[in-house]
């Protein structure tokens, strides 16, 4: 293998140095490119550029196969069969958010990137320039009218909703595979941080116009398509897609706390109650469980949004996360979209058994023998059984004991347009303080979350999770601080008066003595 490649490389260098010596210097050096490729890229993209590096199975999407010469995020025409160099340089320099492909701009120089570019193009013997380019026309600035027009086109004929869902959460009910037969999921358009090529309208315009080669995301500039759009229409759709970005429910890396609010009236019992939307929310990043037991590298859920309410007797925690699929085992439709195996969707809250006094918390992955945890678990049910909820006592990921009797713990969920909402309630205090966390107003309680996407074959120890965060049941405002403040001020005042009187007397005495 290697020999052939070296020979080819030699031949190419030879050829290039004869025909376009000047061009070569400016374009990049194949040998240097090979060196860089071997050190930095080979582990993922494979020795032969076929994307079959050792971690391919554990990455979703898998590394690109360069031997086909097909690239996803391009600006050449939809009918061109190769990208512009600039497209590839951009992906290599900036990386591809939401994938394992990092940006190399901070490690490789511009020349390095040109060198490695020559090398990866060479895998598919890409030469020349693309025959056609995408026409960007005149950009339509974003405006409420443009967005409204874009929305109509997005939904018309099921143009984008077919795959991206009614609200753009990627929950279109289709089973998609790319040209390699790998499962692909339409992008959740409300999460721009997962866009490989940004959600700037210009980038979205390019995607709509060209599609995403090798995937089922089609070109809408192609006149052969009965859903094709004019340039102006494409700008409107791009503006609409850009406007879908979530603004509230996004991860704020500086926030580690879920703040529970004291309820004014009765605690809501359904996840769709309007009060939830009015509360302050905290959103946390979820990552695959790759620490213990059977690991799962390609989980589907990546964030979870949490809100909490409480009253004198109970606490209610509201969980919300985007999931493209409502996974109901036994349901023919769900099974047709699901990956290999279909399990229930599920979610769990992890809490320590007691509020830690020191800094030490239970092991973040379901506790251990010395510090067990409570898991409040809900799962979506199947065609044979309704949704279910219960408390699990866990002492490590391999030792989870579901309780026969979970006391007054309750949980219920609802699914709409690619979002699950689940509310869990329990008494603040229970009759079993040895095994149940007892909540106290104002105290910080460690809390973390687990989620399973059943359609992505996540079950058992295969799930996504967060690290420990905090839950605080924020005390209702009280008069106490004002009272203590006034008291301290008054005491200080009395002390000063006493000191002042003594000082004044001393001063008088000194003056009298002097006189």
């Amino acid at each position, binding site marked *: 293998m290697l020999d052939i490649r070296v020979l080819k490389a030699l031949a190419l260098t030879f050829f290039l140095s004869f025909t376009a010596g000047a061009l070569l210097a400016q374009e990049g050096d194949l040998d240097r490119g090979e060196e860089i490729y071997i050190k930095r890229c080979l582990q993922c993209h494979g020795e032969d550029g076929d994307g079959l590096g050792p971690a391919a199975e554990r990455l979703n999407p898998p590394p690109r196969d360069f031997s086909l010469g097909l690239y996803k995020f391009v600006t050449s025409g939809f009918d061109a069969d190769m990208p512009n160099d600039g497209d590839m340089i951009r992906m290599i320099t900036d990386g591809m958010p939401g994938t394992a492909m*990092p940006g190399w701009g901070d490690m490789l120089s511009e020349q390095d990137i040109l060198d490695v570019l020559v090398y990866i193009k060479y895998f598919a013997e890409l030469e020349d320039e693309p025959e056609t380019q995408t026409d960007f026309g005149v950009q339509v600035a974003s405006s409420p009218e443009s967005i409204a027009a874009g929305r109509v086109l997005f939904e018309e004929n099921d143009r984008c909703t077919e795959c991206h869902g009614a609200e753009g959460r990627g929950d279109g009910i289709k089973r998609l595979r790319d040209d390699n037969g790998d499962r692909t999921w339409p992008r959740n358009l409300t999460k721009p941080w997962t866009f490989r090529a940004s959600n700037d309208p210009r980038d979205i315009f390019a995607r709509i116009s060209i599609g995403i080669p090798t995937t089922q995301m089609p070109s809408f500039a192609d006149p052969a398509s009965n859903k094709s759009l004019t340039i102006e229409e494409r700008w409107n759709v791009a503006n609409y897609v850009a406007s879908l970005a979530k603004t509230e429910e996004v991860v704020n890396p500086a926030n580690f706390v879920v703040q529970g609010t004291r309820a004014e009236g009765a605690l809501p019992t359904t996840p769709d109650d309007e009060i939830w939307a009015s509360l302050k929310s905290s959103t946390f990043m979820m990552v695959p469980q790759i620490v213990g037991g059977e690991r799962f590298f390609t989980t589907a859920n990546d964030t979870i949004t949490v809100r909490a309410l409480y009253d004198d007797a109970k606490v209610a925690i509201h969980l919300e996360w985007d999931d493209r699929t409502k996974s109901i085992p036994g349901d023919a439709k769900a099974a047709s979209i699901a990956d290999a195996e279909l399990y229930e969707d599920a979610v769990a809250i992890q809490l320590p058994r007691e509020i830690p006094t020191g*800094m030490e918390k239970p092991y973040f992955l379901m506790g251990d023998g010395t510090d067990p945890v409570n898991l409040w678990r809900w799962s979506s049910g199947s065609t044979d059984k309704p949704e279910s909820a219960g408390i699990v006592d866990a002492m490590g990921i391999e030792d989870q004991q579901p309780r026969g009797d979970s006391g007054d713990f309750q949980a219920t969920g609802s699914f709409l347009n690619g979002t699950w909402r689940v509310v869990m309630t329990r008494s603040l205090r229970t009759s079993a303080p040895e095994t149940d966390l007892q909540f106290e107003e104002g105290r910080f309680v460690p809390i973390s979350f687990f989620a399973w996407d059943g359609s992505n074959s996540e079950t058992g120890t295969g799930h996504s999770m967060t690290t420990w965060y*905090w839950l605080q049941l924020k*005390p209702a405002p009280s008069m106490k*601080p004002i009272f203590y403040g006034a008291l301290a*001020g008054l005491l*200080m005042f009395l002390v000063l008066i006493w*000191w002042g009187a003594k000082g004044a007397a001393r001063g008088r005495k000194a003056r009298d003595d002097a006189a």
Partner: protein
Amino acid sequence: MRIPKLLQAVLVLVFVYYGFIVVFDYILGAVIPRSLLTMYMFFATAGVFMVFTFDEQGAHELVAPIKAMVEQPRFRFIRNLVFLIIPIAVGYNVYGRTLPSFEAPVELRTIHPAPPSTAKIYGNRVNLLTLENPFRHTQTDDPELFAEYVAEGAEVYIMNCQYCHGDKLDGKGPFAEGLNPTPLNFQDIGTIAQLQESYLFWRITTGGPGLPQEAAPWISSMPVWQDFLSVDEVWKVILFLYDYTGHEPRSWGEADAGH
């Protein structure tokens, strides 16, 4: 004009206070916790007080303006003002402190806790003080074999470690932001470049749960790699870490100076 001693003392303290804030919050980029600042200021105040009252003359000068204020009728207005401001400030401070706190507890942690001298790894007790990388000698003896080992280590890394530590070994893998504490950056001169290979072997094989008591709060999500990797794989991935970053492992001779 000479600045009165009292004003000098106050100025020094104000300078120290803002000095801490500038150094921590802006230069080091890590906002200084309130409790720490209070503690530092306590020591600073005590120090300033000791310096200024070193001799009787100094002590005298320091308190003179205060004495004058309460003793001399011509300063009555100032005294009344001070007597009003101080109780209000104290009351406000107490009010602020009794307000419920919404700031999460601060978690201080040791990044490189001292290793134990022995540890139980792969079911055997190993002496970390004498442990060496069995493949390291190939670096000089047989560079070709060494390159092969490094390549095998790279495979182990890409399959297991890059998700968190990043394929550029910069601690910014795709999962990094979901973890607390965030994964170590091996490119940084302050991590593996300061450590011996046996230390890495211990940290990799026993992971977060293998951290000693003083490394609390023990929430490192570093997996226990002896559950997933063979001894040889761990040593090879260590070769890879140093090779990729261009750092040299710390050798035993230098070790006595640190840790």
